[in-house]
């Protein structure tokens, strides 16, 4: 028997064979991978995982692929950094940063989901992969497709910044600029995915793709010495990452890898695009779509596919959600860089900003073991902080001038 049992509808429970489909034929609900946990339980163990590869693929037993011909074999297993300085600043004892700014190969957590998506796509017989993206997802799909020798189409809105387009062109995918606004690109891509025999990673391959995010939960637990954290702070765009971290924690419990899940799941958004956090705070089980306006572009999804499920996961875990302003995003990026030496993109600023708020509100307590998920690299969104980092000291090329500037040595006084 295979570890993958079926695709199952999240709404009506109808099952389908694990092919490239993503919507239930009956009720149009989204599909998700269902596993044979009894079978997996008989082979998986902490020891087996610890002896596996130094990547997220040490959890292959819980990922929806059948072959061992992995595309993206180095993704994941990023550092879990004990953030003593930031913890002290916030007044919490045991804070960790799950640092996906150094994910391989494109420096965001998307390398996890794309690695699973392309591996599955190739084993389902696809030769062409595609995605619609303005940033991290496109980078990752283009890079993995290049390495795997697969054909690749990346769809972007025609008004995307030049630097972001270049980050994709370097891998030589077919970059298609679609004239029109976000909604036009969105609709076109959904229609293309329905018409062409391509693996659209976040459309018809989405049930597999999304499972890659579970590895962030698995790694955290293993790196904490097989403990679940008390608190997790997670950025949300579509809400998939948060939903899958919750799922991953429960899988570990079901398989006996941890005793109990005591984690409160907390969702973070930017105020300029916070449909999920706003609904949560209003006590609603549904969200109202918005038109995004925030510097946190990687989280700017106004009508999030997994928003409903993210609301459910957070409520079940007794966690919370909150949103921060663009100024707080920039402050969050600076705070993380200046306390822990980690330069995050805007999504990381959102996470740190919301972490600060939850601590201030007393929702995260001093002795809670807390993990903040930092999912992308600051070198990709430098424009967000360019006016907030100050200027270098400018000096004449003379020792005297240098020492005076820093008030040191014979000529400047102070420390030498």
């Amino acid at each position, binding site marked *: 028997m295979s570890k993958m049992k079926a695709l199952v509808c999240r709404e009506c429970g109808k099952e389908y064979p694990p092919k490239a489909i993503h919507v239930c034929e009956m009720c149009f609900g989204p599909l998700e991978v269902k596993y044979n946990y009894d079978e997996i339980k008989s082979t998986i163990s902490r020891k087996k995982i610890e002896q596996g590869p130094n990547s997220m693929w040490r959890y292959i037993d819980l990922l929806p692929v059948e072959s061992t011909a992995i595309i993206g074999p180095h993704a994941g297993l990023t550092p879990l950094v004990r953030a003593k300085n930031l913890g002290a600043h916030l007044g919490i004892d045991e804070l960790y940063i799950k640092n996906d700014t150094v994910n391989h190969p494109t420096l965001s957590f998307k390398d996890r989901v794309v690695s699973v998506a392309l591996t599955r796509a190739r084993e389902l017989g696809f030769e062409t992969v595609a995605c619609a993206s303005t940033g991290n*997802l496109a980078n990752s799909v283009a890079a993995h497709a290049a390495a795997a020798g697969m054909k690749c189409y990346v769809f972007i809105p025609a008004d995307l910044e030049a630097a972001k387009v270049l980050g994709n062109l370097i891998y030589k995918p077919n970059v298609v600029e679609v004239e029109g606004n976000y909604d036009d690109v*969105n609709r076109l891509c*959904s229609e293309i995915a329905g018409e062409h025999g391509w693996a659209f990673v976040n459309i018809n391959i989405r049930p597999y793709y999304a499972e890659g995010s579970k590895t962030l939960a698995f790694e955290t637990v293993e790196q904490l010495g097989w403990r679940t954290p008390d608190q997790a702070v997670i950025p949300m765009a579509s809400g998939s990452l948060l939903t899958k971290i919750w799922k991953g924690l429960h899988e570990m419990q079901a398989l006996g890898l941890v005793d109990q899940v005591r984690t409160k799941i907390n969702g973070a958004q930017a105020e300029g695009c916070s449909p999920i956090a706003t609904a949560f705070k209003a006590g609603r089980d549904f969200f109202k779509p918005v038109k995004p306006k925030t510097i946190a572009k990687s989280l700017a999804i106004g*009508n999030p*596919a997994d928003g409903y499920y993210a609301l459910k996961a957070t409520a079940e875990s007794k966690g919370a959600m909150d949103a921060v302003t663009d100024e707080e995003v920039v402050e969050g990026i600076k705070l993380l860089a200046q306390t822990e030496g980690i330069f995050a993109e805007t999504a990381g600023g959102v996470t740190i900003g919301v972490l600060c708020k939850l601590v201030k509100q007393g929702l995260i307590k001093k002795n809670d073991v807390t993990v903040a998920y930092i999912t992308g690299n600051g070198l990709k969104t430098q424009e967000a902080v360019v006016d907030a980092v100050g200027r270098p000291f400018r000096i004449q090329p003379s020792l005297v001038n240098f020492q005076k500037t820093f008030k040191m040595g014979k000529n400047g006084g102070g420390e030498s």
Partner: protein
Amino acid sequence: MTSLRFHIRFPENKIKEPIIYQIGHEYKVVTNVRRADVRETTGWMDLELTGETEEIERAIDGIRTKGCVVDPIELNVVE
């Protein structure tokens, strides 16, 4: 013939209007509602439209003109 799937949202003031019935009459498309949630102040439905592609696109424009918001069934896919 093509079949396309959409997620349609109704603003509060349109909840009581028979929009899907009207669309079925005004355009050459077959409407098929699969799932819906209509409450006092919000409403949505997951809908399949079957017909010629151009006629489906005209029907979608028609639904928009009536004040509804139309997204593909997957909602936002540009990440």
